[in-house]
């Protein structure tokens, strides 16, 4: 085939360097990385001259040491992130939560690290395989057993009634979770029936479904929201006069609330001083009495109270609108700066990308098409065959996939952490912060596991095999199809939602 033809013409950079005298190993299914790792192994095991056994044990130890150091580094990063960003307004009273979060983060990042090592050919391939398996088992253990149990435990601790038997109720909750988790696998054609009950494939397939759904939802919404927020085309025009007018209305409403509350307070005080203590009717006779003797001012008061409630709702509306206007004004000012203009340009670019993605998702679903080749190989094929540029395929394919996969990993980690932080600030309170952080850790773990499932598609064939080997016989095509469906649904509903929100706002604004 064409590719081999190209190879023969350009000498492979790793050929003919120090390995010429050794007998060539039998052709393995992983040509590129195996050769590189062979070389490295030869270099590293040079100290253990006595035969392959000691050499491979030594290299295994070194590899494990590298893996453990990197895991500790990721753990530290997760810890710092938790302390500085997530929990910066709360006090950490249960350290277990922080530990669980950091551990989930550390093991998820290690998975990505192993993919990168796979591409670059770092470490011995058997130790890589071992660490993959180990990592996967630990992560599944955490996601399916530990985190749900602790979520149940903290939920139960918040409810005062069940304080006595916290552990019992936590176990009950966990069992309910496991039941639903298991049931999740039924409607989806994800497994072949020959797998046993407690195999890795069973757990991973279900975790994968949940994770892929999450990814697709976030991805769909992000793809639409990103150009909407970046482009200044959608910014409503807000002047200082608008803001001042709205603020004046807000203060007027507050003044009206205050004056009505003063009347209520004065009325209560005079009644109290006159000895008519206006209690709630207690008991049977109290109720009968309240029917016959109606206090004169009380109907008036309840009317005023209703007016106050209505005004308070109005004031909340006005406050939210004012906050919205301030935010828009700030964005307008930002868009006039250099950075703002750059983001505006990016916004146009992203909107084209978003439209293209929606189009591709539709095509994939309609024509039931699953891409066989990854973008890297495809791109290289196109440049080589159609543009006639000759270059070293093996070398470049490795480096380009490394860069591409690296970018995908980094942006997805960063994007997820930012989204989680925003979400956490929005909904957490001092009581529920533990539960919410654990939920976020669960989501993060599932997200990262399914990223690994899906990233397989973006890698050239030779690097895919380790994922296939480790994760077992999953129906990968199903996950891609499922991702496309949910992505499409999410993107279209986000467009609808943003359209409605955008239309509604200027009308409210104009009603001044």
């Amino acid at each position, binding site marked *: 085939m064409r590719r081999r033809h190209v190879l023969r013409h350009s000498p492979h950079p790793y050929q003919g360097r120090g390995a010429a005298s050794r007998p060539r190993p039998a052709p393995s299914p992983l040509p590129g990385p195996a050769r590189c790792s062979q070389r490295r192994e030869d270099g590293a095991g040079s100290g253990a001259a006595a035969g392959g056994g000691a050499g491979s044990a030594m290299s295994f130890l070194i590899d494990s040491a590298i893996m453990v150091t990197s895991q500790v580094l990721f753990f530290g990063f997760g810890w710092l992130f938790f302390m500085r960003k997530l929990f910066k307004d709360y006090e950490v009273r249960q350290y277990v939560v922080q530990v669980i979060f950091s551990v989930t983060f550390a093991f998820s990042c290690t998975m990505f690290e192993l993919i990168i090592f796979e591409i670059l050919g770092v470490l011995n391939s058997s130790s890589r395989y071992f660490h993959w398996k180990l990592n996967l088992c630990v992560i599944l253990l955490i996601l399916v057993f530990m985190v749900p149990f602790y979520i149940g435990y903290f939920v139960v601790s918040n409810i005062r009634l069940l304080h006595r038997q916290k552990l019992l109720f936590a176990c009950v909750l966990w069992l309910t979770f496991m039941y639903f988790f298991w049931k999740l696998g039924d409607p989806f054609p994800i497994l072949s029936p020959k797998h046993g009950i407690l195999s890795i494939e069973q757990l991973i397939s279900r975790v994968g479904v949940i994770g892929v759904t999450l990814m697709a939802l976030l991805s769909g919404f992000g793809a639409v929201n990103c150009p909407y927020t970046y482009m200044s085309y959608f910014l409503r025009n807000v002047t200082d006069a608008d803001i001042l007018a709205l603020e004046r209305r807000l203060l007027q409403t507050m003044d009206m609330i*205050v004056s009505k509350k003063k009347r209520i*307070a004065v009325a209560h005080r005079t009644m109290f001083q006159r000895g008519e203590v206006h209690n709630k009717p207690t008991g049977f006779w109290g109720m009968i009495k309240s029917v016959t003797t109606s206090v004169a001012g009380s109907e008036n008061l309840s009317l005023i109270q209703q007016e106050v409630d209505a005004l308070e709702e109005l004031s909340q509306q006005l406050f939210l609108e004012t906050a919205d206007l*301030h*935010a828009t004004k700030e964005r307008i000012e930002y868009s006039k700066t250099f950075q703002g203009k750059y983001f505006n340009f990016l916004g146009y670019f992203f909107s084209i990308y978003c439209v293209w993605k929606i189009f591709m998702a539709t095509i994939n679903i309609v024509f039931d098409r699953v891409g066989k080749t990854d973008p890297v190989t495809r791109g290289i094929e196109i440049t080589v065959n159609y543009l006639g540029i000759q270059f070293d395929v093996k070398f470049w394919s490795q480096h380009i996939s490394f860069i591409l996969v690296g970018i995908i990993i980094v942006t997805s980690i960063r994007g997820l952490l930012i989204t989680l932080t925003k979400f956490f600030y929005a909904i957490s309170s*001092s009581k529920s912060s533990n539960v919410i952080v654990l939920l976020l850790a669960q989501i993060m773990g599932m997200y990262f596991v399914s990223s690994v499932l899906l990233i397989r598609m973006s890698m050239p064939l030779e690097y895919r095999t380790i994922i296939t080997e480790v994760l077992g016989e999953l129906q990968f095509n199903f996950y891609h199809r499922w991702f496309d469906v949910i992505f499409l649904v999410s993107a279209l509903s986000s467009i609808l939602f943003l359209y409605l929100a955008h239309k509604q706002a200027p009308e409210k604004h104009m009603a001044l």
Partner: protein
Amino acid sequence: MAALDRVKVLVLGDSGVGKSSLVHLLCHNQVLGNPSWTVGCSVDVRIHDYKEGTPEEKTYYIELWDVGGSVGSATSVKSTRAVFYNSLNGIILVHDLTNKKSSQNLYRWTLEALNRDVAPTGVLVTNGDYDREQFADNQIPLLVIGTKLDQIPETKRNEVLTRTAFLAEDFNAEEINLDCTNPRYLAAGSSNAVKLSRFFDKVIEKRYFLRDGSQIPGFSERKRFGGGTLKSLHYD
């Protein structure tokens, strides 16, 4: 009843410390049954007898403006909140005794509220650090209230109370520690009730009375006094 004079007191603090429960307790002497998140600002009114029990007793309205939110919000949210900081006469700082961060954030809350207030003289304090000297001539009375006292176990109570005493000293303010779900902390005659009453009296004094004890006329002719009199009036 003739219209009474009014003073405006802000109630500031992080979300979830119990400001709404506290305000409800102060104004209605009842515990708030269903606390929910405050969006924007909620106001309530308390009728206070200034110098109760003396011949100069007079009744005033005290408006308690409970401003919700987080001290680390975006600038746009802060500028929205700033509209409530106009012409304030006193500040109640609320923190959660079980959460140290809420006590630390009180410094930033004070800065936010007082920066806004210095605007009329044209001098805005732009340095973000709290410096006691900067606020040495702050004329607005402060009161520090710590909530959720019942959730502190007996063994830790001393440690917590020492810490809050330092905090109150920093602000040159009195402090009260209570549990908003229990009205007995503010029962008439208790030391907390006396401190509260003294605070409100101080607020009313600063607003309506000159140092020498004569009363400022009820409404806005304060500007006439602005030039020649004591600097205690410059925050109008």
